[in-house]
């Protein structure tokens, strides 16, 4: 009913897309800048951040920031169990989590083609 070559092509593209995401999260993430990002730079403006990026001397918005309730989670801070050098593994787990949750939700929400629609579509 469906053309196998088209399906294989579609599958190849999806696999390639996933591999890209895994390589970025699992490998390129080690080269990410650790400087505060745009919002953090603004909330830290007026303070001197310490090595952990927390505000020390001065007055700034970030002094009001509180630790997340999930700060003790095993993947907190994009590290597995707080371990050094585990960013890539944490990233891969995040990619898988997003794929499972997103893929599952979107698959459940999709329009299902009726018996007629299936023939019309191809």
């Amino acid at each position, binding site marked *: 009913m469906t053309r196998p070559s088209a399906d294989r092509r579609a599958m190849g593209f999806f696999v390639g897309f996933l591999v890209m*995401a895994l390589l970025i999260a699992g490998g390129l993430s080690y080269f*990410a800048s650790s*400087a505060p990002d745009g919002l953090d730079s603004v909330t830290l403006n007026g303070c001197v951040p310490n090595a952990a990026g927390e505000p020390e001397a001065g007055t700034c918005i970030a002094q009001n920031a509180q630790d997340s309730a999930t700060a003790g*989670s095993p993947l907190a801070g*994009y590290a597995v169990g707080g371990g050094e050098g585990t*960013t890539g593994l944490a990233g891969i*787990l995040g990619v898988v989590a997003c794929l499972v949750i997103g893929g599952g939700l979107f698959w459940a929400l999709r329009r299902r083609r009726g018996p007629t629609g299936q023939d019309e579509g*191809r």
Partner: protein
Amino acid sequence: MVAVVTAMHMSDGLVNIPTAAVFGVVAVIGLGVAVSRARRDLDDRTAPMAGLVTAFVFAVQMINFPILPGASGHLLGGALVSVLVGPWVGSICIAIVLVVQALLFADGGLSTLGANITNMALISVFVGYAVAVALRGPARRSRAGLVATAFVAALVGTVGASLGFVLEYAIGGAAGASLGTVFALMVGLHALIGIGEGIITAATVGAVAAIRPDLVYLLRGSAAPLVLRGGTAAAAEGNGS
């Protein structure tokens, strides 16, 4: 204890609880509408694509790139998702990323999750999409037009998201800086971050369009939400070629 290098994600405490609650309601309403509208954009082909786009945005959000000495930025992904899977599905993609980041990675506060969803999953997606639709003519005419459209949509969408924070800070922000300073710094830094966002978005959209143009939402039949049959036909053509 953990050196949390966060994204453009507000921590708990940056806005007061009533403000956080208001934007929690905004996020729930926005996502509710998105879920009801997303159905018609999702089929056997686009549903897996949307799941992969979600995973891809999570991955790329980890990559902070330097913008100034001592400051970095990263992709938000609003324009990227709206061009690839449409604004309704796209806003759900970004919301999933933000929920995963907040719950599993302690990136972004739980009380501010609604504000973060408002800024990144709603404002950046729909501002980016509005720009993309305005430039749909050139985007459909050539690959260069599509790539340029993606760049501009991403740049404007990123600045839009930063204005979301300024609004939330104006309504109920914690003390520490004047509104004028927050506005100037947010817009200035996010104009720079938006250039990076634009480059990543343009490169990604360009790559997808080169391989599977039928999977680019912006390139589907006109008035895309209602003419999905046309999109399916275009897909069949694309597969056949």
